[in-house]
């Protein structure tokens, strides 16, 4: 009852969003709002490091981190580490997508394939992908193959689940229209089924990339600790070992930036397709 008297400090609720108050924080466009917050956070961070007297071996300030990133790019070590990580991720993604395509095709063709997919996904999807790393090392040693194997396992299940749900829930009327205008076989799959299931297909790929990204960093950290070769996880571990703390932070920032970039790519694809077509709301 007295709730209306409470000053609104949190994010605006639905009603406030519908009619933004003039002149306030909420009236600013989203980009300057976020930029201002980011600057504030960086300022607090730098202030803490400069004024609190915390050991630079434990916490690096934004200026040192920026210098470390710049140096890492200049001498190529950070770029090389990033390239290795992305390459392994891409290999795992491609194999995972191919496997997901085979599984969902089998699932839509036959009851047996469908049962198999449901059973495999319900068993393997809840398992954190990194958990099979010891097994992968046992089978493939400290090799890229082991990493690709773990990534493939991380990405295949979310993609397969989303795509097969997408296919299963396609509006039957639109499929009937496809057959009615004379489409058959592969053409109805390509021109009606896949576009109609595109919201779930993109959602699956998005989740797959996110899972894959988290998993490869985790796997590389373990590899780094075990003395393996060079991706971003190794870069961070190596820097920690030699107490190059700004480089540890630089590695983390790089990981976050790439994660954001991947997300932006998918958001861009969605804007150009399913959001534009009214198949997914913003």
């Amino acid at each position, binding site marked *: 009852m007295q709730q209306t008297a409470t000053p609104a400090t949190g994010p605006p609720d639905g009603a406030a969003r519908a009619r933004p108050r003039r002149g306030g924080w909420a009236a600013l466009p989203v980009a300057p709002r976020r930029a201002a917050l980011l600057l504030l956070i960086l300022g607090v961070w730098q202030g803490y490091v400069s004024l609190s007297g915390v050991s630079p071996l434990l916490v690096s300030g934004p200026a040192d981190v920026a210098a470390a990133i710049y140096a890492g790019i200049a001498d190529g070590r950070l770029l090389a580490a990033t390239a290795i990580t992305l390459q392994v991720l891409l290999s795992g993604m491609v194999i995972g997508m191919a496997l997901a395509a085979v599984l969902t095709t089998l699932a839509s063709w036959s009851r047996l394939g469908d049962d198999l997919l449901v059973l495999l996904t319900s068993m393997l999807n809840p398992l954190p992908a990194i958990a099979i790393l010891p097994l992968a090392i046992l089978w493939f040693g400290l090799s890229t193959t082991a990493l690709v194997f773990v990534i493939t396992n991380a990405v295949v299940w979310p993609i397969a689940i989303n795509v097969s749900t997408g296919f299963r829930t396609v*509006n039957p*009327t*639109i499929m*009937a*229209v496809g*057959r*009615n*205008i*004379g*489409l058959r076989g592969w*053409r109805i799959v390509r*021109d*009606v089924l896949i*576009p109609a299931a*595109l919201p779930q297909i993109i959602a699956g790929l998005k989740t797959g990339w996110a899972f894959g990204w988290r998993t490869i960093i985790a796997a590389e950290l373990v590899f780094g600790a075990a003395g393996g070769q060079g991706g971003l996880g190794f870069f961070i571990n190596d820097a920690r070992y030699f107490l190059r703390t700004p480089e540890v932070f630089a590695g983390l920032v790089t990981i976050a930036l790439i994660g954001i970039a991947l997300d932006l790519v998918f958001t861009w694809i969605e804007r150009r*397709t399913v959001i*534009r*077509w*009214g*198949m997914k709301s913003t």
Partner: protein
Amino acid sequence: MELRTSPADTPAPRTSAPLLDVEHARVGYELDGRLQVAVEDVSFAIHPGEHVMLLGPSGCGKSTLLKTIAGFIEPAGGSIRLNGRTDLSPGPDRAVVFQEFDQLFPWFPVERNLTYPLRVNGRSKADAARIAAEYLDLMGLSHAADRYPHQLSGGMKQRVAIARAMALEPVLLLMDEPFGALDAQTRSRLQRELHEVARSAEATILFVTHSIQEAVYIGHRVVVLGTPPSTVVEILDVAHLSDPAAPEFTDAMRHLRSLLSADDSTAESATFE
């Protein structure tokens, strides 16, 4: 305007062979692996240029019968012949307009919703564009050619669906309660438009409805189905009736209402307009 004796509005003389010949057809759908018979025994014929309406209470199998003629369901008995042919796999010669608004391809703008099916059926790019423009104009949609379906109202979507089906120049246009989900005003406007367009395009139409008024207004003949498993209650000639204010129109509606009420004593009949 049209007199009962005047053949002005009546379609081609029935001396020609029927386009569609339905003989003792029995149709139904699979439910939990068992056949649910919706229509027990139905016979009627459609000649070129005719608008035949399938009228009946909900669940009488009129939509199932239409889907069987469209080729989505195998008939369970009897015969359905289109130009003498009994193999009726789905095809653009029987273009369907569905009731659902989401029958358009959401990923294509309105114009491509028309040109794409034409391209699938072997039309050249230029031909498809020309035909699409013609039918968009016919349905008053030229201004909306570049919009995506989700930017259209329900009535506009159904207009696009009708334009798309007619652009395929089907030998038989199948309409499955295309106005069933529209509000009353839009519905009567689209009925009027279809009435005009279908007459000028000389389209042959099989139209499923549960609105008596719609059946008398758009149809040349009304095939009345009873409760499921249904049979034909009566086939009424309404070709001369197109003025809803005329006493004959009201008489025909009253007659159809009494047929439907007599066949079905439940509250279902109360839903008829």
